[in-house]
Every structure is written in C-alpha cells, then in structure tokens.
C-alpha cells in the first residue's frame, strides 16, 4: 500500500465519520490533497518568519508543527467541518477572535 492509498483511506474514514454523503471522486480527492499540502506548507513557511524573534525557537516550532501536522493528517476535512455554515460555530469563532484580538493588543503592546 503506497502513501497515496493510505491518505485516500484516511480521507474516506474521516468522510464516513462526518457522515458526508458525497461520493469520493477523483476531483474531490485530489483537491482535498492539494488543500492539505497547501495548508501545511504555507503554515510551515509562515512559521519560518519566527526567525526574526528567535532562531532556535523557530526551528523547534517548525519541527513540532511538522510532526503534529503529519500525525494528524488529513487535517482538511476536519477544518472544513469546523468552518461550516452553522450560525453557532460562526458566532463562537467570532467571539473567540474578539477575545484574542483584544488580549493580544493589550498584552502585545505593553510587553514588546
């Protein structure tokens, strides 16, 4: 069983778990894979910018995120489930974002 089959099997597992009725076509599988790779690679590249804060911290965090991302593959179906159209999840994320922004502005500016 090569890696592609493993990933496909995992996607199928997650899809049955989330009870999605969509058939798993070539197009949807490849776009899920592409989204997965885009997500992980752009996240890792963005984390490299932590070098401006501290080089050692950057290496540790990039490696840690890489390992975590690999073990939790595939992330995309779960991420999609999080960002659904249900109002309750939307308002939840909005309130969380409000909290994070206010906290960060207070904490970030008083300490930097």
């Amino acid at each position: 069983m090569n890696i592609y089959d493993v990933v496909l099997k995992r996607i199928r597992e997650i899809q049955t778990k989330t009870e999605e009725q969509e058939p798993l076509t070539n197009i949807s599988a490849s776009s899920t894979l592409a989204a997965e790779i885009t997500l992980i690679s752009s996240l890792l590249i963005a984390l490299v910018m932590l070098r401006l804060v501290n080089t050692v911290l950057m290496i540790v965090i990039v490696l840690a995120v890489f390992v975590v991302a690999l073990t939790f593959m595939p992330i995309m179906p779960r991420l999609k489930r999080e960002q659904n159209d249900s109002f309750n999840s939307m308002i939840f994320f909005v309130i969380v974002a409000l909290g994070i922004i206010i906290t960060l502005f207070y904490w970030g500016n008083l300490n930097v």
Partner: protein
Amino acid sequence: MIIDTQLASLFTAASLIIIGIFAVGFLDNLIKKVIGLAFIGDGVNLFLVTLGYKPGGIVYIYLPSMTVEWFAQNASYPLPFALVLTSIVIGASTLAVMLGIIIVLYKKHGTISASKVLGDNGEE
C-alpha cells in the same frame, strides 16, 4: 456608598455589552438573540453619551449674557450627543430589518430556534 454618575454609567454600559454578547452567543431563541444585539448597541450608545457628561455642566447653548471663557469651562461636550442620535437611528433600522427577516423565517420554518433555522443545512 453612592458612586459617581459617570462611573456608574460606564459600568452599566460595560455590563450591557457583556450581557448582549453572552445572549447572542448562548441563547437559542432568535428574538432573544436580537434583544441581546439591542443590548450591545445600547451599551455602546450609553458609553458615547457618558463621554459627553460633565459634572455640574450646563446645556451647550451660548446665550448673549455669557462670556466665552465661562461658557467654555461650564458647557458639556456636545459632539457625543449628536453622534449618539445618528447611532440610535442606525441601530433601530438594523433591528427592524432583522426582525422582518425573522418573521419571514418563522413563516418558512415554523420555529425561531437558531440551531434549527440557522444551522448548517447541508447545502453549500
């Protein structure tokens, strides 16, 4: 202990906003959510009005018998009152539109439960 009017208003404004955010986030009834939104708007309006408050200040109407110096020292700050009027009008129109949409949704779904009406209904 009697606290200062301005401080009390500020506390009221803050608690109105927090209660409003709680109501929008955690109550299921759509009308209650809208009441929560009205609370947030009112809290902010109260905060704006409080900014213009001046202990012992006079209405900002300049009469011929006043000197400019005396008027500048005693008049309360007029700008927030002008702003809050506009803000109340906007808030009222937003509420009206929201309640109108809720009426339509109630006719369609037969319920005003947010998790049923505004849930993720499978379509994309």
